[in-house]
């Protein structure tokens, strides 16, 4: 059994089949790309995998565990973390606090401990700060720790989202257009970071991206969606040469 098994998952809104019979096999540690034209249903797949939508049919297994139909919070606790296409940070909070929210379920103390400032509060907060800084340093955000998240430039906001997702200690990381709005330099840096995160944290990553350089550069395999249907999948280099894929992207 593969690490990630998505079997014929699908959802329709009214008469519109947003995603139909999507399937995917992903091994542990694999970097997998999900591509397709605008409106193909890529983000809908993410929403199905993170419990934002409940699938009409199909099943989803992660590491042998059935994840189908669970709530967003449960799925996060079971090891699925994501970033968002339209950045969703906690804008009025500092960069450090954004990551510490990601650590919420790993470092625990009761609300009363926090109010009474018991010793456990201090020790846990210190451990949280250390862990958060570790993640921020990986994504090169350490210097901005005390900035408000909404004051960060675009590229850094995207990286902060990745740091926050990483903080929830996921087994499976879903990145929704991580390089959108970045210049070529930033994208190159991001590619290195994603690779580092995969190798260093032993992460399995599924990413949506329009930047073909990024996809070709770091993804071992890709799936192509078009009109909610799986067009083809396989080794990146082979898929990107496929005439069907080129047709879907560029038209005839």
């Amino acid at each position, binding site marked *: 059994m593969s690490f990630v098994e998505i079997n014929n998952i699908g959802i329709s809104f009214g008469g519109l089949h947003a995603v139909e019979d999507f399937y995917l096999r992903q091994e542990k540690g694999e970097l997998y790309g999900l591509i397709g034209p605008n409106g193909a249903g890529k983000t809908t797949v993410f929403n199905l995998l*993170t419990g*934002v939508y409940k699938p009409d049919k199909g099943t989803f297994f992660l590491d042998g565990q059935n994840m189908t139909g669970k709530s*967003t*919070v449960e799925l*996060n*606790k079971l090891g699925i*973390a*994501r970033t*968002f296409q339209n950045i*969703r*940070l*906690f*804008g*009025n*909070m*500092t960069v450090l*606090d954004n990551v*510490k*929210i*990601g650590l*919420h*379920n790993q*470092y*625990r*103390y009761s*609300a009363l*401990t*926090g*109010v*009474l*400032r018991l010793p456990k*509060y201090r020790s*846990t*907060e210190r451990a949280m700060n250390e862990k958060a800084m570790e993640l921020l340093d990986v994504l090169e955000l350490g210097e901005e720790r005390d900035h*408000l998240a909404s004051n960060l430039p675009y590229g850094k906001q995207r990286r902060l989202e990745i740091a*926050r*997702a990483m903080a*929830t200690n996921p087994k499976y990381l879903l990145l929704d257009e991580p390089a959108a709005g970045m210049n070529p330099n930033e994208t190159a840096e991001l590619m290195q970071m994603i690779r580092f995160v995969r190798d260093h944290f032993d992460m399995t990553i599924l990413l949506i991206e329009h930047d073909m350089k990024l996809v070709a550069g770091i993804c071992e395999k890709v799936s192509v969606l078009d009109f909610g249907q799986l067009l083809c999948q396989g080794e990146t280099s082979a898929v990107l040469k496929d005439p069907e894929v080129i047709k879907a992207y560029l038209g005839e």
Partner: protein
Amino acid sequence: MSERKNSERAKGFSLLKIVPSKSRGKLVTVLIPVVFFAVCALLVNLGVLRSHFAGLLVPLCYYIIMAVSLNFTVGILGELSLGHAGFMCIGAYVGGLFTLLTQDSITSAWIRFPIAILLGGLIAALAGFLIGVPILRLRGDYLAIVTLAFGEIVRNLVQNIYLSRDKAGLHFSFTNAIEPERLDPATNVDIMKGPMALNGISPDATLLISVILVVITIIVILNMVDSRAGRAIMSIRDNRIAAESTGINITKYKLIVFSLSAFFAGIAGVLFAHYSTVSPPKFDYNMSILILVFVVLGGVGNIRGSIIATAILYILPEVLRGFQSYRMLIYAIVLIVMMLLNNNERFNAWKKNTTERLTAWRKGLFRKKSGKEAE
């Protein structure tokens, strides 16, 4: 279309200035009311301030508690609540009735009053929890309407309760006064008489106890904000969807906020009941709006701002009493000026600048001192 409307609404609400809380300056926030009340008490004792002014200090305490606890819901959780007076009403009646019923058996106010405070707070918190459950799915305007209705329901319920005590025990009636033939005329004491005021509660709310409660409220809420739970609550305010997918249990934290906020409003109510006369019309929506005005003008999410704004806006109309007919005019002008200043970038920049300069100056002073010691 409805989505666009929603986003517009969200935008409108975010225009209210949401100030990020910082752990620094927490001590200052606690010290401001302590020093203020200490100085006021001293001046009153010395005879500098009129005794009329002394009478404003305890009410100021419970209004500060109200404003700070409402700011917890509005500024930290980011949900507009228009029924805060309802929780105060519950606290006032629970605490007040407890004292009325027990002041013959428990004669020491030092034992009786803390129990009344705790009881009033807990019952109000329970009400906050119960109202919190059905409105979990509501947000924005819808939540505001339901909380407004809640406040009015509480007031109207209380307004219709008749309660009497005689040698046979307690007599209770709803909507109508209790028939005299049911009561023993010799020993009968009316406790609650519908819309009429609750009489005979011993005035236990001293300034000392009130200030202690203010300090407790501020410390609990500031510590809560600057902790694991507080971060989770603010994450819900900033982005609910992201909070959920980061594993934050929204239901749990919303209920914590509603209950805690109601708890402190209940305590403020108990203070109210033990200081001035309690009658249902005092807890109408005007009270809720008044508290909301304190919160908004002090800065949504800014606890220290709530304290200062409450002090200014509560004392001002009383100080202006000498001006008689111009009183409310000046009050209105102050409200408008505060609103304008709060949204003025140049004023905020000036404020920030001054604070930074003050901090730098203080640091420089400290450095000089420690430098001398090193020599």
